[in-house]
């Protein structure tokens, strides 16, 4: 019951935040004149002659409040303007490019979480040992790595030095033809999954070969992040009274670490999945750009680079809404894992 009240309260709190987010994006469009803003809706060159009509249609010369209302109405109906880069409406472009990015996330997320948790708790369990110092150095170097540079170095070695072993882009030309042929059914547009569903081995291997380097690039920085968090959380949990009790009972150290300390140390890591979403969203822009991997991040970069403002703002809005929802889910999960949060009534 308490939980339901909590969820309802959180959902109500979402409304002002989402309104604020739209207001903020709308504010950025105000850097531009009505004519420039009208061009965000232009779908082909012939329409440029009709700019006054577009200004009229979207009310771009109306008072600010009216304009915001009209704009918000359009956004709620899914009209985010026209993407010149993708040559389709922005909202369609998002769905068009999303599967490729999801494919990266599907592989990277479990990898990041599992390796991060394992390394972090191992380091904490052996505090101040060579294992601890070693993992800490690795983590801090990983945390300081410029993602774009790491990607280039990986390409230099695995694409350049090992003669095309792990190439950039999403698929080789031959496999791209297979994927786009009539026999190959694209259920999800996620290549590896589609390949399995179509029982097509070569496509699967080719897709995998293309995805390895971007996934590594995305993962290293975030593994370092989760590891660091898990280490300090685990250290805190190892210092608690129940650990002393468990040890005093004569439990094996392995059981104490794995069953008692690690389970409790995992709680803050759940909260971090929210941050992880943001980190991945930021990371795919750079990673996809370097590997010429045509997902949503690549599209966002192309748009920013070619000053396709409608796409950039649409992308930012999409990410903000998603991020807010992810955080909501995380907070609700958190109350299930840690009942203390519910008693307090607020999450800070």
């Amino acid at each position: 019951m308490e939980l339901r009240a909590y969820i309802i309260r959180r959902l109500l709190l979402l409304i002002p935040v989402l309104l604020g987010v739209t207001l903020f994006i709308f504010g950025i469009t105000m850097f531009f004149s009505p004519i420039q803003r009208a061009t965000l809706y232009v779908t082909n060159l012939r329409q440029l002659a009709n700019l006054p009509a577009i200004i009229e249609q979207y009310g771009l010369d109306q008072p600010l409040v009216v304009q915001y209302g009209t704009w918000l109405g359009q956004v709620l109906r899914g009209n985010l303007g026209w993407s010149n880069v993708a040559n389709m409406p922005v909202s369609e472009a998002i769905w068009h490019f999303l599967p490729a990015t999801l494919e990266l996330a599907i592989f990277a997320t479990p990898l990041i979480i599992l390796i991060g948790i394992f390394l972090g708790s191992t380091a904490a369990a052996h505090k101040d040992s060579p294992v601890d110092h070693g993992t800490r150095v690795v983590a801090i170097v990983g945390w300081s790595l410029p993602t774009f540079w790491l990607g280039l170095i990986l390409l230099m070695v695995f694409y350049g030095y090992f003669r095309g072993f792990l190439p950039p882009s999403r698929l080789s030309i031959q496999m791209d033809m297979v994927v786009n042929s009539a026999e190959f059914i694209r259920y999800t547009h996620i290549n590896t999954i589609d390949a399995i569903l179509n029982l097509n081995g070569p496509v699967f291997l080719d897709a995998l070969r293309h995805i390895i380097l971007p996934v590594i690039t995305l993962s290293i920085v975030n593994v370092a992040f989760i590891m660091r968090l898990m280490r300090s959380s685990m250290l805190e949990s190892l210092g608690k009274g129940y650990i002393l009790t468990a040890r005093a009972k004569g439990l094996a150290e392995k059981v104490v670490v794995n069953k008692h300390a690690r389970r409790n140390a995992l709680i803050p890591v759940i909260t971090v999945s929210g941050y992880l979403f943001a980190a991945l969203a930021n990371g795919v822009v750079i990673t996809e750009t370097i590997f010429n991997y045509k997902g949503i991040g690549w599209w966002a970069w192309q748009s920013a680079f070619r000053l396709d403002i409608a796409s950039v703002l649409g992308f930012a809005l999409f990410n903000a809404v998603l991020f807010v929802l992810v955080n909501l889910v995380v907070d609700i999960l958190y109350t299930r894992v840690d009942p203390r949060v519910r008693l307090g009534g607020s999450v800070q």
Partner: protein
Amino acid sequence: MTDWRFMARQLARNPMSLMGIIIIVVFAIIAIFAPLIAPPPEGHWNPNPYMIPRDGYSATPQPPSEEHVFGTTEGQYDIFYGVIWGTRTAFQIGLVVIGIVVAIGIVLGSLAGYFGGVLDEVIMRITDIFLAFPALILAMAIVSAIGPSVRSVMIALAVVSWPSYARLIRGDILQVREEDYIEASRGLGASSGRVILRHALPNAIYPTLVMASLDIGAVVLAAAALSFLGLGAPEGYADWGQLTSFARNWIVGPPGDSLKYWYAVTIPGLFILLFVLGWNLLGDAFRDILDPRLARR
């Protein structure tokens, strides 16, 4: 109150933070003496020393030689000159952004924390809105709206990072707000401004300030990423991110010599890595010292 001498001793004893300090000092020396280490050549093509001298216009990078110690990158920009003057750019971006962000954070954070109530609610809900965006994506949107330049990058990074500092400082102020000495100075008739400036802030924010200053590494990393994406410095400006992006077309050499242009990719990136690493090493050590939960073990 934190004992500064104790803290300094802790930092100097820890090999990792010592390493961090050394790295930062070396970079500071490079930045200060940039005009001596890499003097702009006679008859430089541009009066602005931050513009990297170029030796011709050919696209192909040239390997390290006596004349160009680190070689040249695409467009014959001298890599050595670029990374040396790029150190100045890095410090400049880091210091300016952190300065702005801390200033905004102190003002809004202490207003929210000290007065509480509606003001607190409003300020915190505004930070919620800013924090609803993944930072780099929002920075990208801002830069593309106001036009790419080093200044835009600094503005964008300040806009996306002030909310977390405002929240931290608000939390610090909340912790000391109910202390007896605050109550006492209020009782003596001191104005709110005086209580905040003279009593609350000095006792609350030093740890936050230290952590903020160590975020310079993170700021420089984000700025380099924006620059790499082509949203930062104008072409030819001494900037590590841009120097790395020049090398994008040259990661694979000709057949039989695939690592031919290694210097163009590797060197600017190494400078970014080391700079950020220096700050992070120091920051990590600080976090351990400041975290009382860990100190007891």
